[in-house]
């Protein structure tokens, strides 16, 4: 391996030396090198140890199809990046690189020592060997895990961030090789908004190699590149891999914005990588093709590479991968490489499996040795290739035979070309299957989904000029589909032929013929799978692990299908391919999350009083998307102490709570009352303006789904409240039933959840406070009974005051326009100091209502609880004219059973023991059959002991009985069943201090 003198189209910048560290040693390369080209020039080998057998591996390819050279960058740090392909990692200054394989190390690998056992370690060996004895499995697993996978996962938080970007384009072009460049320019010139993507740092694709030797190519490339840069309606994204194509042309792509920069040179304000989400009206896939290696024994040795990769390293990086070269293949591209190596001063031996051609003669005239009708049957070497054995071969029908074993050719580089597989992945993501073409010896993209085209070598054009013409043709078709040109182009450009010969499988030492380098899958494994009756390609894949690796079988799958075809005699087109799924190349999780991490993962919704809560030192709880005050600790109070103080204040003097998060739906129309009757279980016919009613909402299956108080503003105007978490769901529920089932009802729904803020004033002194802050409402018990509401002015602000209670104490909820919410809260807090008013949060709210046995939908109900189960049969009005949602279900045989799970109260024998919520309940202490579970459980400061609510089978009939709680950890505890109203201080409690 050596660095050549400057090449005409090289990507490297010889003025900028970069250093990288590999296994304790520093090496150098140039800016513009990939890690792979720098490793090659430094003769770094091996780069990996194979998965099962620990075989030493080298770099095989130059692009994303590379199966071997997986490395970890910046191991153990905040920039730890696992499973990086050295072939597309751009070298940066002081890059720290570790191999991603080798147990215990790259130099010494245990698996290689197990060589004598390798013949027992074929496909399926893991589960055949380790399935017994069963109880040894945890021990087996621990051992096997050491050998599995590649890089370790990161252990430190990612120091960098990621973001997303949405795009809308008329035409998206994937791939900026000659086909993509031509298509993008033609499309843009035709008036379309174009976005052009390429996974490499600069446009050109495989054409860069052609530009080095073909003047016409170079001129066209330069002119087109310039034109694209200056064309206004083209957006070009390089270092951007389109990794998925979904329905309706949703193209997902990952842009590596800073991965090519030294760590110190990265801009922390910029994302490391960006996920692009592109909706394109038309998509042109110019994704190119991947070269296939040839099949022969030990074809996985270091120094055996793809011919096009050798070409790329030569032209783009000025790296000569070897000076004793054998080029073998079944198509005309081998002669191009041979010619270019001759130009570089190397005399390759060419092994062509086909007959002689004009190319053969031309090359021989330049002094190269060419063997036609020959193939490599075996490579020789231990840590790297030192020679290949070639043989004359003959094809009879479907079989290949060795005619005579000819020569052993010493070499340090073997360049293989077994044909080209179009990169069909994106075309297949929406369910299409590629179609095998005997003419091109390749699986061709079906391209049968609408608004999509393929162009270039993915469409079997092997030459840059053909790709260019095909790209222009695709653009014209896309423009026509968008009606930007009057008609479609006439003809598709004719394809130049590479004369690709058929797949060659000799079955010489098949247990050494590697198909999938990443998973050590050999030809013998395919034969074994078929012998064990795994005949479908999907089964063969899973049984052998063919195509399972991070490379998704880019260089191995088609060869694997060819072997399956040779073994079974079934033609390639019938065997077909396995399913192609996103992502085309791996995408880091951070890029999928973008900026939606941490506090931005989900919206945090705040009430208008939030600022005051923060200033008061409230601790917060997440309720759906809302941040609600959980408790308001004073000093160094813990939850328990704060809740005790808050509950005491609510029951004995004065407290306040922010109830703004509850859903509020404004319901208006002549049929509003009827609508309520249909969605709630209770009666609404007689609810007068100025009155409120608690409503219970069921689904059509009769199960409670929400509850809340609805206020009557007028005969045609109601305000419904929902639970905090149910607001959006109930809103959608009302719309759905109205629009699809009851369109004749004249009613409309408007969400006013955020418009109204709610300050609840709670406790025996509540009336005193209200009288102080509102002079135009009469708060006396007679004038303002429980479950009424009044319109008035509170502290100068128009308000609706509702006398409803979730605690059982005297309670007024002051509703004002949200813009005045914090003002009202702060003023109530200040004025309430006269009675030592105590703000309380959700924890105290939960305790207070539990002391009264009030349910919380979603906590005490779980979608399987009917109103009767919850002891709320009183809320069901059966004589409404229209059968309300859920009515019929209440009389279903299962719903009407007497022994359903029913809501009861529980008291533990030890008053200090608080049962865990969710705790299982059984009838007898030794039982395991579940009788029910605990739904709510607290320490009650009011009762100075624990209380719990639970749903228990036949609970109503078991009142007064003792059953048993069986927590996950801890002892079984006896609990007494009682009703749920733990704290009943009589009607006086509700009216407070008169």
């Amino acid at each position, binding site marked *: 391996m050596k660095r050549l003198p400057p090449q005409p189209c090289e990507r490297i910048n010889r003025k900028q030396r970069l250093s990288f560290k590999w296994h304790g040693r520093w090496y150098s390369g140039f800016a513009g090198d990939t890690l792979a080209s720098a490793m090659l020039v430094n003769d770094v080998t091996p780069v990996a140890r194979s998965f099962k057998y620990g075989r030493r591996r080298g770099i095989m390819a130059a692009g994303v199809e590379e199966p071997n050279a997986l490395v970890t960058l910046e191991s153990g740090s905040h920039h730890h990046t696992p499973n990086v392909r050295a072939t597309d990692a751009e070298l940066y200054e002081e890059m720290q690189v570790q191999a991603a394989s080798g147990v215990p190390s790259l130099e010494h690998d245990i698996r290689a020592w197990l060589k004598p056992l390798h013949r027992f370690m074929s496909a399926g060996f893991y589960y055949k060997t380790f399935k017994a004895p069963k109880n040894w499995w945890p021990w087996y697993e621990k051992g096997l895990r050491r050998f599995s996978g590649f890089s370790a996962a990161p252990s430190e938080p990612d120091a960098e961030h990621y*973001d*997303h*970007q*949405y*795009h*809308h384009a008329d035409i998206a072009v994937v791939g900026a090789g000659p086909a993509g460049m031509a298509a993008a320019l033609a499309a843009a010139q035709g008036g379309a*908004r174009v976005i052009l993507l390429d996974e490499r740092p600069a446009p050109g694709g495989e054409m860069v190699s052609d530009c080095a030797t073909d003047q016409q190519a170079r001129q066209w490339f330069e002119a087109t590149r310039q034109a694209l840069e200056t064309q206004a309606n083209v957006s070009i994204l390089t270092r951007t891999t389109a990794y998925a194509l979904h329905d309706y042309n949703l193209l997902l792509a990952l842009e590596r914005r800073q991965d090519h920069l030294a760590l110190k040179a990265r*801009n922390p*304000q*910029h*994302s490391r990588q960006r996920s692009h*989400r592109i*909706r394109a009206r038309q998509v042109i896939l110019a994704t190119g093709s991947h070269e296939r290696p040839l099949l022969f024994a030990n074809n996985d040795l270091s120094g055996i590479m793809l011919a096009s990769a050798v070409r790329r390293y030569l032209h783009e990086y000025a790296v000569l991968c070897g000076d004793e070269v054998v080029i073998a293949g079944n198509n005309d591209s081998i002669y191009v490489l041979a010619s270019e190596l001759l130009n570089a001063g190397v005399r390759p031996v060419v092994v062509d499996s086909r007959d002689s051609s004009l190319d053969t003669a031309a090359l021989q005239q330049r002094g190269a040795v060419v063997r036609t009708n020959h193939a490599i049957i075996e490579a020789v070497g231990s840590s790297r290739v030192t020679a290949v054995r070639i043989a004359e071969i003959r094809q009879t029908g479907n079989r290949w035979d060795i005619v005579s074993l000819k020569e052993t050719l010493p070499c340090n580089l073997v360049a293989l070309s077994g044909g080209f597989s179009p990169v069909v992945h994106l075309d297949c993501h929406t369910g299409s299957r590629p179609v095998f073409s005997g003419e091109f010896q390749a699986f061709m993209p079906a391209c049968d989904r609408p608004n999509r085209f393929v162009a270039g070598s993915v469409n079997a054009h092997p030459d840059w000029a053909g790709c260019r013409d095909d790209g222009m043709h695709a653009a014209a078709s896309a423009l026509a589909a968008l009606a930007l040109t009057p008609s479609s182009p006439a003809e598709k450009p004719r394809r130049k032929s590479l004369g690709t010969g058929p797949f060659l499988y000799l079955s010489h030492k098949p247990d050494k013929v590697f198909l999938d380098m990443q998973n050590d899958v050999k030809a013998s494994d395919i034969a074994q799978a078929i012998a064990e009756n795994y005949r479908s390609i999907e089964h063969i894949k899973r049984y052998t692990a063919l195509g399972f690796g991070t490379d998704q079988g880019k260089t191995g799958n088609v060869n694997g299908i060819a072997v399956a075809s040779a073994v079974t005699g079934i033609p390639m087109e019938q065997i077909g391919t396995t399913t192609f799924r996103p992502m085309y190349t791996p995408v880091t999780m951070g890029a999928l999350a973008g*900026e*939606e991490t941490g*506090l*931005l993962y*989900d*919206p*945090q*919704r*705040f*009430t*208008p009083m*939030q*600022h005051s809560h923060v200033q008061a030192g409230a601790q917060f709880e997440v309720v759906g998307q*809302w941040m609600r005050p959980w408790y308001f600790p004073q000093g160094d109070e813990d939850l328990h102490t704060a809740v005790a103080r808050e509950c005491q204040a609510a029951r004995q003097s004065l407290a306040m709570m922010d109830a703004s*998060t509850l859903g509020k739906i*404004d319901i*208006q*129309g*002549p049929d509003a009352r009827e609508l309520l009757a249909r969605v709630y279980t209770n009666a609404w016919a007689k609810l007068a303006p100025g009155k409120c009613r608690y409503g219970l909402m069921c689904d059509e299956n009769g199960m409670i789904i929400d509850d809340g108080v609805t206020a009557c503003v007028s005969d045609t*105007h109601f305000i419904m409240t929902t639970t905090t978490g149910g607001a959006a769901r109930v809103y959608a529920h009302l719309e759905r039933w109205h629009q699809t089932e009851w369109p004749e009802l*004249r009613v*409309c729904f*408007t*969400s*006013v*959840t*955020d*418009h*109204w*803020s709610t300050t609840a004033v709670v406790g025996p002194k509540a009336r005193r406070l209200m009288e*102080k*802050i509102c*002079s135009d409402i009469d708060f006396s018990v007679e004038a303002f009974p429980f479950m009424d509401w009044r319109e008035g002015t509170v*502290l*100068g*602000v128009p308000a609706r005051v509702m006398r409803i209670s979730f605690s059982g104490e005297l309670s007024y909820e002051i509703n004002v*326009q*949200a*813009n*005045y*919410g*914090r*003002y009202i809260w702060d*003023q109530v807090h*200040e*004025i309430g100091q006269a009675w030592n008013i105590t703000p309380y949060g959700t924890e105290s709210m939960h305790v207070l209502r539990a002391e009264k046995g009030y349910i919380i939908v979603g906590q005490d109900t779980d979608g399987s609880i009917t109103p009767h189960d919850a002891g709320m049969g009183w809320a069901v009005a059966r004589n409404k004219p229209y059968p309300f949602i859920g009515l019929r279900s209440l009389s279903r045989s299962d719903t009407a059973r007497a022994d359903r799970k029913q809501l009861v109260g529980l008291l533990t024998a030890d008053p200090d023991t608080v049962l865990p919520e969710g705790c299982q309940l059984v009838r007898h202490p030794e039982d395991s059959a579940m009788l029910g579970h605990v739904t709510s459980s607290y320490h009650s400061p009011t009762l100075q002991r624990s209380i719990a609510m639970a749903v228990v089978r036949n609970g109503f009939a078991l009142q007064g009985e003792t059953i048993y709680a069986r927590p996950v950890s801890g002892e079984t505890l006896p609990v007494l069943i009682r009703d749920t109203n733990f704290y009943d201080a009589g009607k006086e409690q509700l009216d407070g201090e008169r």
Partner: protein
Amino acid sequence: MANVEPVFETALAHVDTSAMSEPDFNVTEVRDFACVLLRIHPQTAGAGAALARLGLAFPPALGIHAIPQQRLLMKWISPDEYLVTLPVTDKAAFIEQAETAFAGLFAAVVDNTGGYSLLRIGGGQRYAVLSKLCFYDLKGNLPVGKVVSTALAKAPAIFYRVQEDELYCLLRGSFADYGWKILLTASAEFL
């Protein structure tokens, strides 16, 4: 009773509004705006006449009917829902007039002022920033006079434009803080 003046606050009253105030990208919360929803369907008998009495007319789908002198915009949200934004001081009178005009019709007037925060977004990079958060094609498909209900990241959002060089974003009040934070994050690289 304490003699204090009511304090009117918008959702982002406590946010440092200078954080995004560059020529390249700027966001301000409009403080003086009220929001009233008119629930009325054009096919309701008498609807057109009722609107005419208010000096209004039904805009087409995704359209805006504007009365610039009153700084009033009537925005189509749904066939039977129109979001009217107007100065705070004009709200009470407008609601009263609308209720009167709608009397006897199947129609409703709903004050939703507290329900929204209104952001004005400007600057040369506004579309670059918004394209990181909104999957709607705001740059290519939101001309002056159009209103679109969609999402800003994970928050429901209504975008509209009445002028070339800026656009408006209505966020529900409880999502305003989240909207501000994600705009800050998305714009950091441009500021």
